[in-house]
């Protein structure tokens, strides 16, 4: 199968490329940019006039809900949502049911995802058995089964002794740990940022200090053990400052922010909108600005969708009882573009934050359009507006604080391995 993508504006951050070029694909690989190779006869031509051609997006955090929570979402529904959002590779956290602490489960997930031939799935294995924070999982075996790193999902390791050992063990083999920084005792039962809005609404708060305390432990132990640490979903201004400082001395630290945190604050909870019940909680305007600045100066390496599909019934409850999470796969690109436009960040830099940079963190070969790389490509219209709604989302999770928003950035075609897997 040979594909010719013509007349598009090609943006490839890794190769610092932003120009109008044609892309030539053969046998699932990119064979040339610009000049048509000799004897290349396309079976399929895609006209990308007025469209942007960029690497397929790489998402650092997307829950697929399999195994165990198929009533919330399935592998099929969520991988279709991924490619509809231009995402061609994604990492999924281990908090499934059962949790991803067994090589067999990881193999099965990888196998099933592969059969679907949609986005590539890169599981994060459970760092500790059952995510209980007590006994290390069989990281070596899980790695062989296909885990690209290890995570505790939203569940913190309270015992610093275990955290230390986990980092030492992971450092021995060069595994990356994906950690969400939240001190579990301070955050206990909390459902919103501990500030003015939580006080007004009478919601139990999660103080910013919960993130800072957890980060202090993680960063200190990371320094001691030499472990490679990725902080998932940073949420506070203080957190950004701590990472900025830590990175000066420790090259093994990276971090991301969720697209939700870039656009929303505690005020968006309004009259108890359960779609805004998220983890980490939506924080203040000041935090939002600091996260944005951190992204711009490279303190924060990437933007993730934090895709967490929730069934409608689970959101039909008073705020604190409503399940945590929002759909995100199909919003990642548009929310990133919106942020870039607001902050006057170039498209090239913005796309890097959801492709090249995320791929680098995961240690996978993706997120670029280099010659001879896999043809995982996203073609989108940066100027076309669409409305975020139940009807337009393919994900089984329809809940999002952005519901009803008209937003620019519409994915037109997504290719994985040189095959068109989505076309709008």
């Amino acid at each position, binding site marked *: 199968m040979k594909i010719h993508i013509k007349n598009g504006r090609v943006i490839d951050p890794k190769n610092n490329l932003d120009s109008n070029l044609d892309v030539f694909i053969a046998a699932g690989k990119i064979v040339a940019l610009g000049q048509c190779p000799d004897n290349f006869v396309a079976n399929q031509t895609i006209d990308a006039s007025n469209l942007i051609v960029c690497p397929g997006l790489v998402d650092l955090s997307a829950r697929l809900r399999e195994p165990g929570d198929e009533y919330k979402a399935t592998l099929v529904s969520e991988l279709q949502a991924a490619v509809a959002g231009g995402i061609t590779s994604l990492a999924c956290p281990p908090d499934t049911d059962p949790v991803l602490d067994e090589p067999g489960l990881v193999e099965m997930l990888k196998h099933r995802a592969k059969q679907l031939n949609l986005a590539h799935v890169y599981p994060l294995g459970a760092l500790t058995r059952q995510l209980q924070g007590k006994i290390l999982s069989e990281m070596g075996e899980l790695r062989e089964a296909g885990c690209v790193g290890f995570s505790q999902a939203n569940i913190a390791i309270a015992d610093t002794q275990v955290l230390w050992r986990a980092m030492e063990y992971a450092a021995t083999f060069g595994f990356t740990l994906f950690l969400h920084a939240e001190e579990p005792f301070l955050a206990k039962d909390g459902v919103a940022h*501990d*500030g*003015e809005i*939580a*006080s*007004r*609404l*009478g*919601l*139990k*708060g999660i*103080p910013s200090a919960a993130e800072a305390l957890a980060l202090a432990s993680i960063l200190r132990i990371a320094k001691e053990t030499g472990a490679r640490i990725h902080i998932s979903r940073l949420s506070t201004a203080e957190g950004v400052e701590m990472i900025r400082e830590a990175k000066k001395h420790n090259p093994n630290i990276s971090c991301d922010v969720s697209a939700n945190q870039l656009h929303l604050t505690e005020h968006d909870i*309004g*009259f*108890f909108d*359960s779609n805004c019940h998220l983890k980490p909680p939506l924080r203040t305007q000041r935090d939002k600005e600091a996260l944005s600045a951190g992204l711009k100066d490279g303190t924060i390496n990437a933007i993730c969708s934090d895709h967490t599909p929730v069934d409608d*019934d689970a959101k*039909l*409850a*008073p*705020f*604190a*009882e409503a399940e945590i999470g929002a759909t995100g796969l199909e919003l990642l690109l548009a929310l990133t573009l919106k942020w870039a436009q607001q902050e006057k960040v170039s498209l090239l830099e913005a796309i890097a934050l959801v492709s090249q940079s995320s791929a680098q963190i995961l240690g996978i070969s993706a997120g670029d359009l280099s010659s001879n790389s896999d043809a995982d490509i996203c073609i989108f219209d940066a100027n076309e507006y669409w409305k975020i709604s139940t009807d337009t989302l393919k994900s089984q999770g329809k809940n999002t604080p952005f519901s009803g928003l008209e937003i620019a950035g519409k994915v037109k075609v997504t290719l994985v391995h040189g095959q068109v897997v989505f076309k709008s």
Partner: protein
Amino acid sequence: MNNPQLDADGRLRHLLSIEGLPKKILNQILDTAESFVGVAEREVKKVPLLRGKTVCNLFFENSTRTRTTFEIAAKRLSADVISLNVNTSSQSKGETILDTVDNLIAMHADMFVVRHAQSGAAHFIAKHVPNHIHVINAGDGRHSHPTQGLLDTFTIRKYKSDLHNLRVAIVGDVLHSRVARSEIHALTTLGVPEVRVIAPKTLLPAQVEKLGVHVFHDMKAGLKDVDVVMMLRLQNERMNGAMLPSAQEYFKTYGLTQEKLSLAKPDAIVLHPGPMNRGVEIDSSVADGSQSVILPQVTYGIAVRMAVMAILAGGG
């Protein structure tokens, strides 16, 4: 953002919280309540404003006083009243809040009086009921207890002629208190120039000053020259733990005694939403003393709740 409590014409549709209600509506409720105070003194303690209407008291959390006064208020307005104690155990058996509400709507309830342990529960129910049904929040988690805030304000109005010239202190567990939040919003909206909160730091919510109050940790400084002292109930489960070391120490520091009360203005009044913990937050001699208006609060509570129901039903 649309205010879920008001209809398109700015009239009261639900009573969910004091916050977000204009001064005009608060005054309308208080003035209407004034006209209902006399009803209880008549030989026939009834007016026909809600005749043929069904009021459903839906209590997901236990209550005696609030439920009873709502029941009496509805009956004095000639409504049919059903009171349901939906305890949390039957909830955990599977029926969701909305299922419970939907069933009652199918039985043609016209008005819901709701109490629930979760903040936002009344907003949640109000969002899902059809247009012709009214919801009154009788307490949701730590968030709001609007009729209590209103009846406290009504009581103050009865004893103090000018709200614009008052210094009010709210004392105790503000952190967990829906009553305190409602009182603060009612008083500040109605133009009380100085509202103080007095509590240890463990019992104050984050950034409480943003609610428009002055914060005191010292009872003596906080009570100095106030016109009104509003005591809050201290829940038993807060007394021994990380919030407070003991009930004794709390009483010593923050319990209202005659001695501490003497720092307030000589004609200061003392309120308490009940039920009281005598010897914990308030000394019996104060609770039963001449400055206490705790029992009148209960009486006025019925008039205020009648007023809210009457206005919601269009008869205010």
